[in-house]
């Protein structure tokens, strides 16, 4: 009994050390524990991404987390083990967001295009405190198109490479670079009020 418990613990520890692609291989073979580990690894990341994509709607984000994991399971056999899991996973998430937006547009006649506007004076004043910077940023993100928002979050929140982002969004690398550049400019313009002009700042030494 002791030996078998120790053996199971060793297997469990090995699974926790396994990379995402190895876990997917085990999931394809019917390993439930591997699915649990993968879920623990990705649920918070996915939730954060979806929260920002969906403008902070917690219920919608949680529902989408569930839907996306189900989609991953249903399509697990299509995952090629020689590819990276994260881009494949976030591609599913991105496409799901796109569908959700289409559905929302259909219902609310809302638009997902860029507004090309700065935040209103009132919004800026409301968020003028540094502690509110995050809220202002999230508000600014919601003014971006779905694709640019996704691109920005995948780069700065998920720290994916440009190559992976290009795969997820099905765009050439050059296009990703230029759009990311434009997005940063746009965000900078919208968050100009937060530029710490009155304070002496230290430059980012880790750059």
């Amino acid at each position, binding site marked *: 009994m002791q030996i078998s418990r120790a053996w199971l613990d060793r297997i469990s520890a090995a699974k926790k050390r396994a990379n995402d692609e190895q876990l997917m291989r085990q*999931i*394809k*073979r*019917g390993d*439930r524990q591997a*699915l*649990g580990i993968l*879920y623990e690894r990705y*649920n*918070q990341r996915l*939730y*954060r991404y979806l*929260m*920002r994509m969906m403008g902070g709607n*917690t219920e919608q*984000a*949680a529902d989408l*987390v*569930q839907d996306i*994991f*189900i989609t991953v*399971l*249903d399509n697990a*056999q299509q995952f090629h083990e020689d590819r990276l899991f994260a881009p494949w996973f976030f591609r599913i998430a991105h496409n799901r967001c796109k569908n959700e937006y289409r559905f929302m547009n259909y219902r609310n006649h809302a638009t997902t295009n860029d507004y090309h506007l700065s935040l209103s004076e009132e919004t800026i004043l409301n968020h003028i405190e540094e502690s509110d*910077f*995050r809220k202002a*940023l999230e508000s600014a993100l919601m003014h971006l198109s779905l694709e640019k928002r996704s691109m*920005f*979050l995948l*780069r*700065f*929140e998920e720290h994916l490479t*440009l190559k992976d982002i290009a795969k997820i969004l099905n765009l050439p690398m050059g296009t990703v*670079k230029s759009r*990311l*550049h434009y997005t*940063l*400019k746009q*965000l*900078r313009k919208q*968050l*100009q009020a*937060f*530029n*710490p*002009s009155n304070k*002496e*700042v*230290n*430059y*980012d030494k880790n*750059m």
Partner: protein
Amino acid sequence: MTKTCNSFKDLIDRSQYEHLIAEDASALKEHLNVCRECRKYQALYTQITKAVDTPMAMDHTVRNRIKHFILDHYRQQNKPTDNLRHKLLMLFGRPIPLYQSILLVLSILIIFIYVSRKKPNNDHAMPQRAEYYHTQSLNLPRVLTNGDIKLMQHQMNGINMTADTMFSVIAITDM
């Protein structure tokens, strides 16, 4: 050639999503030491990336509910006891196309049956010699019993003949 603040700002933008070449990176670093304006420009990016990188925790109960739902879905999808596909997967370690496999096995079986039927008879107990005996035996005078003769008489519809006549008919027919 000395770079202007605008070109350094461009470098700051680019450094947010791609690695700068060593020469540009060191030039930017030196410039940031002396230019307050560019430091401010970079600071906003630092603020943005820091703000985006903050964790957003899902409610613990919601997280567990979703986990159980997903695991249940997975269990239903895989039902290891009655799912042949799963058994094949466990056996071969890779997904096996079930219907194609069944078709392949059936085709092999049909071909095997066809080939084994066409195969010449190799049974030495019944050689060609046996056929020879059989042919020879046709030419030998056959001994007919009374029962045989009665049957033959019955088969010759309406022709009433005696056993002697019948023998002579048989003798003529055989010759």
